[in-house]
């Protein structure tokens, strides 16, 4: 597949934008859920090309950003222990905890390793029976299958030195929270294509119906994004609200059922804290009791931690689409990717980081 000639094709993007301009009769607010989409919009400068009537707000779909501060502190405490190899996706290493990050644990002599898959962490556990190997299992539905496979693999290998520190969040409850909030501005959603690849999109149908919002399953290339927006605008302008799939090369209505089955086998739904937003009922997954031996938060008895967030940071409002990075007094002066005040500045998919990186002094 040649991205340049297919999904990043200037002519196609521009003709879709022209069509968008013709369709629009009034202003609309559309939220893209996923941080990967936020990043792509800014990376391709798509935000500059959109018609004025269309306002794009950025959603909570950055797994690094919404991982609770307390859990980051827990990770740091576990990683600092001498008999532990702490493994994580790269993005998490720079996320500030209450007083330091995983990078500084590594600099102080902790064994913190970046892995591309939790199965690599299982392999490390297999090779180092004398160490406790912990994987920081964070993410949305997208990472869940891999995270549970690592647990199943560890069980199959009979490993007693592998565990996961879980912060697994789900999109549909977050959509409920956003749409049910009194100040909600969102009139349509671009649903995250890769989440839907795993879960399908049938769970969005009741949401669309209940709140009368169009929801369009959307991919990550510029043309995917423009087509997703176009479908949403068509619905908005004609007063419709339904779930549409603009990413059919990857997503089906029922999703990957094998993945769903193993998630169901290992995880159960639970209430979940979202950094910056608060508790959203039944919005997360945790390990079922049968798998508690692989639960790092049980294995490492940690006392309740006192966390403190920056008082200036407005990451929570940004994650709910209520504000944009430029509404924050700290943006790009005291808060930068080198010294982030909140998680939306630290992750490459965080809204503040995307604005800082691609458009900090534009507009």
């Amino acid at each position: 597949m040649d991205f340049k000639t297919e999904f990043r094709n200037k002519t196609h993007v521009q003709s879709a934008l022209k069509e968008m301009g013709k369709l629009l009769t009034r202003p609309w607010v559309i939220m893209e859920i996923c941080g990967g989409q936020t990043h792509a919009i800014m990376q391709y400068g798509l935000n500059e090309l959109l018609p004025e009537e269309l306002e794009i707000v950025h959603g909570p779909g950055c797994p690094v950003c919404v991982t609770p501060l307390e859990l980051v502190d827990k990770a740091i405490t576990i990683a600092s222990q001498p008999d532990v190899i702490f493994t994580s996706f790269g993005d998490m290493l720079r996320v500030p905890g209450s007083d330091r990050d995983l990078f500084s644990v590594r600099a102080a002599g902790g064994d913190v390793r970046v892995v591309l898959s939790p199965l690599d962490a299982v392999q490390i556990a297999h090779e180092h029976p004398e160490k406790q190997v912990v994987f920081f299992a964070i993410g949305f539905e997208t990472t869940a299958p891999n995270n549970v496979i690592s647990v199943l693999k560890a069980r199959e290998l009979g490993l007693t030195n592998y565990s996961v520190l879980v912060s697994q969040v789900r999109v549909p409850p977050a959509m409920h929270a956003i749409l049910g909030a009194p100040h909600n501005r969102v009139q349509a959603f671009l649903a995250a294509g890769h989440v839907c690849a795993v879960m399908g999109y049938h769970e969005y149908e009741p949401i669309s119906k209940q709140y009368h919002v169009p929801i369009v399953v959307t991919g990550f290339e510029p043309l995917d994004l423009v087509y997703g927006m176009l479908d949403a605008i068509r619905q908005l302008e004609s007063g419709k609200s339904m779930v549409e799939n603009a990413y059919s090369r990857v997503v089906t209505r029922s999703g990957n059922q094998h993945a769903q089955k193993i998630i169901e086998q290992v995880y159960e739904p639970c209430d979940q804290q979202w950094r910056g937003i608060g508790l959203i009922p039944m919005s997360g997954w945790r390990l079922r009791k049968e798998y508690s031996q692989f639960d790092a938060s049980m294995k490492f008895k940690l006392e309740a931690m006192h966390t403190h967030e920056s008082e200036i940071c407005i990451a929570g409002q940004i994650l709910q689409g209520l504000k944009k990075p430029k509404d924050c007094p700290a943006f790009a002066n005291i808060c930068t990717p080198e010294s982030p005040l909140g998680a939306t500045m630290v992750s490459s998919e965080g809204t503040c980081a995307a604005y800082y990186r691609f458009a900090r002094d534009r507009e």
Partner: protein
Amino acid sequence: MSNKSTNSFEGLVCPIPLNHKKFIVIGHGSGGRMTHDLIRDIFQSSFGNPILNSFNDFAGVILPDQAKMKGRLCISTDAHIVNPIIFPGGDIGRLAISGTVNDISMSGGIPLYVTASFIIEEGLSFDVLRTIATSMNTAALEAKVQIVAGDTKVVEKGKADKLFISTTGIGWIPEGRQIGGEMAQEGDVVIISGTIGDHGIAVLAARGELKFSTTIQSDVAPLNQLIQNILETAPHVHVLRDPTRGGLATSLNEIALQSQVSILLEEDAIPVNPEVRAACEMLGFDPLYVANEGKVIIILPANEADAALKTLHHHPLGKNAEKIGVVKKEPTKRVLLKTLIGGTRIVDMLAGEMLPRIC
């Protein structure tokens, strides 16, 4: 030595003096006979030239013919660490020579002599060291420079990562040549000598971190011959810069800052090997930030750009060269990119380590 180490090699065997010819041991750094043997067998046999062979603690060298004219000495120093030390397309030795030769060449200068210090971790095999020394010599021959002085230290296992090489280069900048990061001017054209990101991805792949195989080769090469050719056809080049660590994006940001200008790139024009692009897509990397070791950014007046490009295309190291952007006055100190779809965005410096993303 712990008395508990019953399975230790050194703990129980009879201490017969071994003929250490397979692996580097601490004794090779003693300064005594073993050091002499190491220097003779590996370094002198690989680099052999009369200056080095004099076996003094200094190298007496002569200045080139050009120095009879006016000009300036150019000196550059660099330490090289890379894991693994041998990778597709090169090794730490070729990297050390090319890196230093290229740093000198970025002044428009002619590199002449290089010195090299080796910090070797105990346990490195002689074969590997010999391969690397031979490769250094090959790179030096390509660049027409001489390795005139060197030093060797051996450190205990775990105190270094196999081999570190520190090099210093000396060159001559002919009179009247004013090339530097502060010289970019409004209206200049920006050229890159070939595809970006090859070295960084080749090294990542060699570490086994990609989990998929590639045929990507590092571009590591000395660029001085190519640059001298360019300067013959385009004598008014303003800036030369090799986009190594931090990649093209970081180097251009440095130039925009030094010259107080803006640089506008065309994403469409930037050459990227399709395999490098695919690897970057999978890892969430941007090729603009991936390291190169055999590429040069050339910023020059628009009226010399075509001549420079033609010269580049005639040289194997410049055959994929492209015009990728222009220098503008505003917004100063910024690099902007016209994206594939026609939007414009900032191209920032790399904030820290590039990290693979989650999903």
